[in-house]
C-alpha cells in the first residue's frame, strides 16, 4: 500500500508539473501579447514594453516559469491578474469554494438518485423500475447538461418562476436562496453521471446477487434485511465508491459549461473568462487547481478501491 501510494504521488506530481508547464509554454508562444488585449490594439510600443516588463513577460520562458513556480510553492502567490491587477490568489479563494460546492452537491444528488434506483431495479429485474432505468440510463448519458440547463431555465424560471435562472447569492444572505440557486445547475451537472452510476449500481448488485456467499447466507436463513445490508450492498458498493470519486474529477470539465449557463461565480467560469481575455495568470492558476483536484480524486478512487477490496491490495 505504501509503495502504491508513493508511486501514485510521484505520478500525480509529474502530471501537475507537466500540465502547468505545457499551459505556461503555449501561453507564451502565442504571437499576440496579452499587453495588446489589455492595453488595446493601438497601444504604443513603449507602453507594451512597460507592461511586459511589469509582468516579467520579457524574460526567457524558463526563467518566467521558475519564478512562477517559486511564487506558488513558497508563498502561495499566483501573481496578479493582467486585467484587474488584483491578486490571483484572492480570486482563487473567492471562486474555488463555489465550484467545489457545486460538484459536491451534484455528486450527492447523483448518489441519492442513482444508488436506490440501481439497487431497486436489480432487486426487481424486469419490473417497471428496471424498465424505467433502462430508458433513463440511455437518455441521461445522451443529453448535454448545458442544453438541459437552458430547457430547465425556460420551464422552471421563465415560465413557472419556481427557481432562479442563475447567479449564486452568498450563503450568508440566506441559506434557502443559496440552495434554490444550486438546484438546477447541480441537477444538470449530475444527470450524466446519475445515469451512468445507476446502471453501474444495477449491474454491480446483480453480480453480487449471483455470488455463492449470498446463496449461502440465504440458505443459512439469515434475515432478508441482514442479507441485503451486510452481504449484498456492502460488496456491491465497492466499485461505485471509486467511480463516484472519479466522476467528481470529471465534473470539473463539465462545470466550465454549466457555470457559464447559470452564471455561477466559480473557478471554471473564471477560467473561461480568463481564456478569452488572455489573463494567463488566472488561466495558469485555475488549471493548476483543477488538475490537483482531479489527480487527488483519482488517487482517492484508487485508494478506496484497494482499501475496500482486500483482494487487490495484496
Amino acid at each position, binding site marked *: 500500500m505504501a509503495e502504491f501510494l508513493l508511486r501514485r504521488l510521484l505520478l500525480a506530481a509529474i*502530471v501537475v508539473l507537466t500540465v502547468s508547464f505545457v*499551459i505556461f509554454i503555449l501561453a507564451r508562444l502565442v504571437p499576440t501579447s496579452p499587453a495588446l488585449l489589455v492595453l488595446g490594439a493601438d497601444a504604443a510600443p513603449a507602453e507594451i514594453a512597460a507592461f511586459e516588463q511589469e509582468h516579467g513577460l520579457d524574460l526567457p520562458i524558463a526563467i518566467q516559469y521558475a519564478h512562477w513556480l517559486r511564487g506558488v510553492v513558497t508563498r502561495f502567490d499566483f501573481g496578479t491578474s493582467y486585467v484587474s491587477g488584483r491578486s490571483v490568489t484572492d480570486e482563487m479563494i473567492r471562486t474555488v469554494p463555489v465550484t467545489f460546492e457545486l460538484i459536491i452537491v451534484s455528486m450527492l444528488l447523483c448518489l441519492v438518485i442513482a444508488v436506490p434506483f440501481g439497487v431497486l431495479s436489480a432487486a426487481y429485474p424486469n419490473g417497471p423500475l428496471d424498465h424505467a432505468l433502462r430508458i433513463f440510463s440511455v437518455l441521461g448519458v445522451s443529453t448535454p447538461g*448545458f442544453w438541459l440547463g437552458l430547457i430547465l431555465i425556460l420551464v422552471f424560471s421563465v415560465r413557472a418562476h419556481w427557481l432562479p435562472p442563475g447567479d449564486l447569492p452568498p450563503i450568508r444572505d440566506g441559506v434557502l436562496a443559496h440552495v434554490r440557486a444550486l438546484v438546477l445547475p447541480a441537477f444538470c451537472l449530475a444527470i450524466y453521471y446519475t445515469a451512468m452510476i445507476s446502471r453501474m449500481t444495477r449491474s454491480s448488485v446483480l453480480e453480487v446477487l449471483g455470488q455463492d456467499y449470498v446463496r449461502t447466507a440465504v440458505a443459512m436463513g439469515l434475515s432478508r434485511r441482514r442479507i441485503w445490508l451486510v452481504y449484498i450492498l456492502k460488496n456491491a458498493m465497492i466499485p461505485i465508491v471509486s467511480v463516484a470519486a472519479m466522476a467528481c474529477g470529471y465534473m470539473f470539465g463539465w462545470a466550465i459549461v454549466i457555470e457559464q449557463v447559470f452564471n455561477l461565480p466559480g473557478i471554471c467560469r473564471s477560467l473561461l473568462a480568463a481564456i478569452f481575455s488572455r489573463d494567463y495568470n488566472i488561466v495558469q492558476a485555475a488549471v493548476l487547481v483543477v488538475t490537483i483536484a482531479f489527480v487527488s480524486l483519482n488517487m482517492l478512487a484508487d485508494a478506496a478501491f484497494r482499501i475496500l477490496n482486500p483482494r487487490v491490495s495484496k
Partner: protein
Amino acid sequence: MKRQAIFARLGQYSSGVAGLVLLGAMVLVALLAPFAAPSDPLALDLASKLLPPSSDHLLGTDQAGRDLLSRIIWGARESLLIAFGSVFFGTLFGVSLGLIAGYKQGTVIENVITRVFDLFFSIPMLVLAIALIGIIGTGSISLGPLTIDDQAKLIGLIAFSFTPALGRITYAAALVESRSDYVRAKRSQGASPLELVVLEILPNSIPPVIVQATLFIGVAVIVEASLSFIGLGVQPPTPSWGTMLADARNYIFSGEWWIALFPGLAICLTVVGINLIGDAMRDMLDPRAGVRSGFI
C-alpha cells in the same frame, strides 16, 4: 427460453435497430444537406426574424431570420464530421499504440507507452482541451502548405483525449492474444511480426475497442456541442448545434423557446441513436464488459 427472456432479447435487438435508424437518418440528412435543407442556412432575412414554428419555417427562425431547420440540417454535417473524424483518429492512434505495447511486452517500448497512457489518464482532458483551444485560438493556423482550421483543431483535440482509453483497451486485449497458442503457432511457422499483429492479434483484440469507439462518437458529439456553445468550437456563422444553442441563450428570457429546444433535440436524438447501437454491440461483441460508458 422463458417468455420474459425472449422479450428481453427482442428488446435488445430492437433497440439496436432503433439506434441504427436514428443515426442512419441523421447521417443521411447530413450527407444530403444541400438537398434536404429547405433554405440557405446562412441567408439573413431580418424581416422574418424570431418567427415561431409555422408552415413556412417548420422549426421557426433565429434572431437573424435564418431558417432553424436548415441550420440544424447543416449543423448535423459539422457535428457528425467532427465526431466521426475524432473517433477515427483516436481509434487509429490508440489501437496502433495499444497493439505495439501489447506485442512488445516486457520491453522498454511497452513500458513507455503504458506510462504515457497512465499520464494522460490522470489529466483532466476536457479542462486541458478548453485551455489549449483558448490559448491557441479558434482561427485557422497555417503550417506551410497545411491549414489547420477550427474543425481540424477540434478533431485533433477530441481524438487526442480519446486515444489513451482506446489504447488501454487494445493493449489489454493484445496482451492476452499475443501470448495465446495460435499466435505462437503462427510465429513458429515463420510469420513476420507485422503479419502476426495485423492478421492475428488485431482482429481478435478489436471487438471491445469497437464498442468503446462507438460510445465515444456520442461523447464527441456532446463535447463538440459544448465547446461550440462556450465559443471555443465551431465558429459562427457556420451552423453547428452548439453555436445555435449559444444564440438561444440570449432569447431564453424573451420566450423564443424554439431556438433552444430544437438544436438540443437534434443532439439528443443523435447521441441516443449512437448509444443504443453501442449498447447493442456490447451485448453482441463484448458481453463480459459490464457497463462501459464514455467516461469523460
